[in-house]
């Protein structure tokens, strides 16, 4: 699959629009899912997705093949999402995390209690953007921590820390919702 994507990028670099269409069909859904998870606005996410693939069209010749094509494209989507959030004035770029106790008893039971998707969606939205991005890339896209670090342009240790805090806050949120009986 990765080799197919690289072949398509090479073709796009030569101006092959059919290759661009094929790459779009292959990666549109995961890239869109990632963007919309960050922006929580399907219309704006559609526009960002469009800009991402326009960038792919324009800069395919500069792809050096040192990473997977999907990682490279996610990196473009990551940066464009940050730009969009900056324009909205709701960007928080710090890595500071609220000091919370790790009080996650029986989280697996919480998820078995029903309404899983709604709980998870709600709790993801409560996370800071950099935490949500890291957990989204890990769980939606099944990326390694090295790939996520490449997408976000930060050291691997930073990603591990973000994931650690994201996981803790997610567990806490899920436990709290189920304990309170939030439907």
């Amino acid at each position: 699959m990765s080799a197919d994507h690289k072949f398509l990028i090479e073709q796009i670099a030569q101006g092959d629009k059919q290759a661009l269409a094929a790459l779009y069909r292959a990666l549109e859904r995961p890239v869109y899912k990632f963007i919309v998870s960050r922006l929580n606005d399907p219309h704006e996410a559609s526009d960002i997705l469009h800009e991402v693939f326009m960038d792919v069209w324009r800069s395919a010749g500069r792809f050096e093949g040192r990473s997977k094509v999907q990682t490279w494209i996610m990196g473009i989507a990551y940066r464009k999402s940050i730009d969009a959030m900056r324009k909205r004035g709701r960007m928080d770029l710090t890595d500071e995390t609220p000091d919370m106790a790790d009080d996650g008893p029986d989280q697996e039971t919480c998820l078995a209690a029903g309404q899983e998707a709604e709980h998870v969606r709600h709790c993801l939205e409560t996370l800071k953007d950099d935490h949500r991005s890291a957990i989204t890339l890990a769980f939606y896209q099944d990326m390694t921590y090295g790939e996520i670090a490449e997408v976000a342009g930060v050291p691997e240790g930073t990603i591990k820390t973000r994931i650690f805090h994201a996981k803790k806050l997610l567990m806490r949120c899920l436990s709290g919702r189920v304990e309170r009986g939030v439907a």
Partner: protein
Amino acid sequence: MTYQDIHELLPFRANGTLDGADLAAVDAALAEDADLRAELAALTAIRATMRAEEVASPGDFGLARLMRDVDAETRVAAPVAANDNVVPLMRLRIWQVAAAVVLAVGIGFNLPQFGPSTAPMDSAEPAGFTLASGGADADFTVVFAPDATEAEMRALLLQAGLEIVSGPSALGIYGLGLIDAETSDAAFAALSASAIVEDVQ
């Protein structure tokens, strides 16, 4: 490896991307710690829930928009030689464009190709982009304004009860089909009145 190191790697055990020493260390910790196993089970469930959630992506509509803008950008990047007698194609009425194409074919004249293509010149398929859904008969043909956004186009089509059945062509022409044939007049009126539609036939 510390307790925190193990906890930091646990999500990557859940998504199956750990290997080598990291995987061995996490698995060894899991074998000894029931709480850690419970947390892994929770993470696995969260991951499964996230991945199962359906998201309605732009799909063919987004692809059509992408191809339209790529075509437009390619034309800008490779302008034809200046000629005061030439009217830009996008400013011509659609029937005029169609007539020009028919004339060009009739006299054995190839229209300029925008951008390189790997398709052979004698290929049975056209070199340009075609939608996967194919080019079904259209009730209307339209040209959207170059700055029209996907959200605006989608809103207009939903309001007018239309769907894209073909296009965009190399000239940015879309074929639209009526979802309900009885709304033809209303749909035409909506397209004609829209600020994002440059031409409708």
